[in-house]
């Protein structure tokens, strides 16, 4: 496939994805396409189903109905939930990355910072210790983690540092698609700004595609090209990020946008 054709083929395609928890609705009948280099934000209040959707998309939860297709580096469309387990694990280690809201869910707290970054490289097949350490150092530098802390365990790090380390661990293998669940949640605003700037730069520089779940509309505005607004498990509005935020059409989106405090 040429690069031009590549850009016309969705990287990830969700088709009528529904997931319920017993009688409770997670997300219902959700379809969309994510194209290479595109960042989609999913916003909505707590309980709107955005994290459920993200987990389905990332192959961490199995939808009740519907399907999710991922186009791999060779151009073949893989059904995320019916590929073989080793194939899916390989995807998660190489092509995909998942940044959790709480860094401790995405890091191994008892392994050094360098180990955390190196581990993912080794899972992808890297074996040369010197190269692995060099790449780990390079990524700590990129994510602005003090490189002298490479041998320290992340449980001695601040929240902001842990989050940057989690990002380093995730991006070191050069993934094509990054899932993020409230990446700036729980951080001080000054730390948030730094992280946002970092994420934005990395996404642009690496040409990453990303799906970002956040309840923070300012984060969505800065990071995403397109926005999906969720309420009670459904997508109520979708479009260009600044258009959805500046001229919302749906009653719920209007409420959401008008409820934000502007300091």
């Amino acid at each position: 496939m040429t690069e031009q054709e590549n850009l016309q083929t969705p990287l990830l395609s969700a088709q009528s994805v529904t997931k319920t928890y017993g009688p409770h609705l997670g997300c219902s009948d959700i379809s969309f396409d994510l194209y290479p280099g595109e960042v989609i934000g999913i916003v909505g209040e707590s309980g709107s189903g955005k994290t459920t959707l993200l987990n389905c998309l990332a192959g961490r939860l199995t939808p009740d109905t519907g399907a999710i297709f991922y186009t791999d580096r060779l151009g073949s469309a893989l059904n995320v939930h019916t590929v073989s387990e080793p194939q899916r694990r390989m995807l998660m280690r190489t092509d995909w990355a998942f940044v959790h809201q709480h860094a401790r869910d995405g890091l191994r707290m008892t392994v050094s910072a360098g180990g955390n970054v190196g581990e993912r490289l080794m899972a992808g097949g890297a074996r040369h210790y010197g190269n692995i350490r060099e790449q780990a150092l390079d990524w700590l530098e990129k994510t602005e983690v003090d490189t002298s802390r490479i041998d320290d365990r992340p449980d001695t790090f601040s929240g902001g540092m842990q989050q940057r380390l989690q990002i380093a661990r995730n991006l070191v293998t050069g993934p094509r698609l990054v899932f993020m669940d409230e990446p700036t949640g729980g951080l001080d605003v000054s730390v948030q700004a730094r992280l946002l700037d970092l994420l934005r730069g990395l996404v642009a520089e690496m040409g990453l595609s990303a799906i970002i779940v956040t309840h923070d509309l300012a984060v969505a505005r800065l990071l995403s090209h397109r926005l999906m607004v969720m309420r009670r498990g459904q997508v109520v509005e979708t479009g260009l990020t600044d258009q959805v935020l500046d001229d919302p059409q749906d009653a719920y989106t209007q409420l959401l946008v008008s409820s934000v405090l502007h300091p």
Partner: protein
Amino acid sequence: MTELLRLTDVEKSFTLHNQDGITLPVFKGLNMQAHAGECVALAGPSGMGKSTLMRMIYGNYLCQGGKVEVLHDGHWIDIAKANARDILQVRRWTLGYISQFLRVVPRVSTLNVVAEPLIARGVDGATARDQAAEMLTKVNLPQSLWHLAPATFSGGEQQRVNIARGFVADYPIMLLDEPTASLDKVNREAVLDLIRASKAAGRALVGIFHDADTRSAVCDREFSIEEFKVSA
């Protein structure tokens, strides 16, 4: 003159679902064109919808009806119907917009803020920053500020950063929302020079200028929104 922008039968209203579902009509049946090499002033009193129209052309506001066509890469694209990806392409290459207020990522330096539209097009960082520096010089922004983030700048300085960012990428169509509002005479003249140069280079400009002197200095004609106004 080559037509670059064409609005046909454009309609806008706002429905406020959380305020008793009230609908505020703005305008209806609006037709307008802009051609290569001209600067069109949107005229009319405040509240008439001048900024709204500008945002609709940029795809920031939706149209309730009609077409907003932009000549992009040799083809006409209807912004009112285009999908988000196509609008982003049009914004990257064809359509520039200088809003009244600068909105940027917190920590980013002025030089990088201005270079960003070029970097988004794939220009390498060093070249983009060189061109950004050139543009910042043209709008008289002191070099001592280039490496600082613009958040703490004065209104006039921020506006000049915004203008430099808008003009750095040579968009064939430029939308200007009061680009000279908070500038003194010298700096206003610098912006007017940029507008004149853009016209000479065959770009189409559509602007809102409250100051009559500015209007008469650079605008070729006025377009009055008032006749398309729908009263509430």
